[in-house]
């Protein structure tokens, strides 16, 4: 052993402990990402000629832009559905006894315990022509011919909302749990109705949870390759499938890389909007 310990800076330990993870990220995340960027800056599939051709191709092509747009829109729809359905569950969780709380948590977590593929196949069974929804509606005499639910935008949104629901509900439960219940009572005793209390007290204070939930749900929904392709089918093109098509079927890696970089930036933009809102809401919550 050398004489090092005597002169060692105490703070260097912290960095040392983080090193393995940092190294892991550097090798398996940053390096491939840089390679992706490098590849996307080439005009030919062999990667010999530098240029911005791939980006120009994507950004001047109305079809590619519409794929990006519809993917971002899909994320927004799924997030809205998750928020609308998840908030009441989280709110309910804070107002029931411990037994019911366990049941709610179990129900919320249950989807996470099965694989996405299994959950998605369940939705094929539910939404199909002879599926549960169509069979029920037909036996009740509400419809004559089966509705087309599978391979529609509606189907994709509903299935994704269920698949990603825990990502919304869990942060909401945590956020709502942090709100002092006395604030509700105080608001009521000062003459506010329940709606007013909700919009002026509960909602603002739960905003950090709402934003965390929205970010997670959004990011998961737009990148959900399996659910998108199994429920949406081959004619509904979203970014992950577009990427796969270019990389896997056509071996056009530079264009696929450019698509991923653009997709990455678009998602980062949306997420940073969420984070900015989060920062604003912290100020609001503290006021």
């Amino acid at each position, binding site marked *: *052993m*050398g004489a090092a310990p005597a002169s060692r800076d105490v703070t260097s330990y912290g960095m040392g402990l983080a090193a393995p993870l940092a190294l892991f990220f550097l090798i398996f995340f940053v390096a491939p990402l840089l390679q992706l960027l490098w590849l996307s800056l080439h005009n030919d599939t062999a990667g010999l000629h530098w240029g911005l051709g791939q980006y120009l191709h994507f950004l001047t092509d109305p*079809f590619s832009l519409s794929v990006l747009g519809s993917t971002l829109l899909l994320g927004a729809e799924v997030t809205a559905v998750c928020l609308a359905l998840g908030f009441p569950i989280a709110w309910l969780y804070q107002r029931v006894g411990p037994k019911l709380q366990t049941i709610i948590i179990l129900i919320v977590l249950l989807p996470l315990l099965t694989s996405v593929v299994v959950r998605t*196949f369940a939705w*094929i*069974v539910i939404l*199909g*022509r*002879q*599926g549960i929804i169509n069979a029920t509606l037909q036996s009740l005499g509400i419809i004559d011919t089966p509705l*087309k639910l*599978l*391979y529609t935008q509606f189907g994709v949104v509903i299935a994704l909302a269920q698949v990603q629901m825990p990502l919304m509900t869990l942060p909401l439960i945590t956020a709502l749990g942090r709100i002092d219940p006395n604030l509700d009572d105080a608001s009521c005793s000062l003459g506010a109705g329940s709606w007013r209390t909700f919009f002026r007290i509960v909602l603002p204070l739960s905003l950090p949870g709402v934003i965390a939930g929205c970010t997670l749900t959004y990011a998961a929904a737009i990148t959900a390759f399996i659910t998108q*392709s*199994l429920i*949406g*089918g*081959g*004619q509904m*093109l979203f970014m992950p*499938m*577009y990427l*796969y*098509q270019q*990389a*896997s*079927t*056509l*071996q*056009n890696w530079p264009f696929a890389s450019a698509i991923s970089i653009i997709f990455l930036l678009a998602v980062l933009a949306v997420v940073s909007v969420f984070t900015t809102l989060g920062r604003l809401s912290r100020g609001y919550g503290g006021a």
Partner: protein
Amino acid sequence: MIMNRRSLMTTALTLGAMKAFPGLSFAQARPLVFATFTGSWEEAHKAVLVPAFRKANADAAIVLDPMLSVDQIAKVNAAKANPPIDVMLHDPGPALVAIGQDLVEPYPVEKSAYYKDLISEAQEPTGPAPFFQVVGLTYNPEAIKTPPTSWADLWKPEFKGRVGITNLNSTLGTGWLVEIAKMRGGSEANVDPAFKALEELKPNLAAVAANPGALATLFQQGQIDISPGNFNAIQILKARGVPVEFVAPKEGAIAFKTTIHIVKNSPNRELAFKLIEAALTAEVQTTLMKPPYLIVPTNSKVAMSGEIARVLAKDTAELKQKFVFQDWKKINEQRSAWIERFNREIKI
């Protein structure tokens, strides 16, 4: 050398790494690696081809590493000088990509004992075809009482909202589009007629699946009653009790050559050759033709039997007459443009 904590750590890590990645130190002495396809292909090869190969070659070590064609190409490309795979298996499209990127060793035809027994379409000097994949019409016999006979039947008004197809990501989807083009006066170089025909097919389309596997699910769920389908995929569904039947249309069933290749710079070239030889033998192909595998043979000495003789062809002569082979060199030239066009135009 003074033994301190750091040098001890380094030694331990190195030893650990050598244990975890034996390829680091013994790159030359690895077993033969055969990249087959996943799923039923892997099962068939593990059960039939590998034992036959090992029996003929003094129990030589072999590893099956199942992966998609595109991954095989990527892996070999990443280490051209010392490829991690010795034998590749490819559909016609990817095979041409691999050959084009100079990843494939020419097959030593003059050394081969079985190459000349293959039917002429399967004889490829870049890598022979030990199996065919066949695409025809798939239908649900419970919903469709008169079996379809032609690709044109998909356009019949009675199948309104009952037809399924796949997009062009798959070999099946692209091959089918070309066949439709041919039916309407087009060719591998001109698929305009097929896109026009697709436009007319829209009222009948219930689903455009993202891959051929998804079509199977759609049959199971009653979402579709008729579609183009892969003979082998249908047999798997049938065996599971799903009501589906396969029929070769009168225009001819589309046959894809699944070709097998020796990877360029493979350290196990000789064994790779031996494995491919085993795949070409009449014995292996006869076993693979029987249930549950039902893989269409390419060796003309194999006597057709069972389901394949019933729905496809009784002998090589009939097979040649009933199968349609496509020019994938031509198809690959324009495939990306077609995929783009399909993306844009086919919205239902």
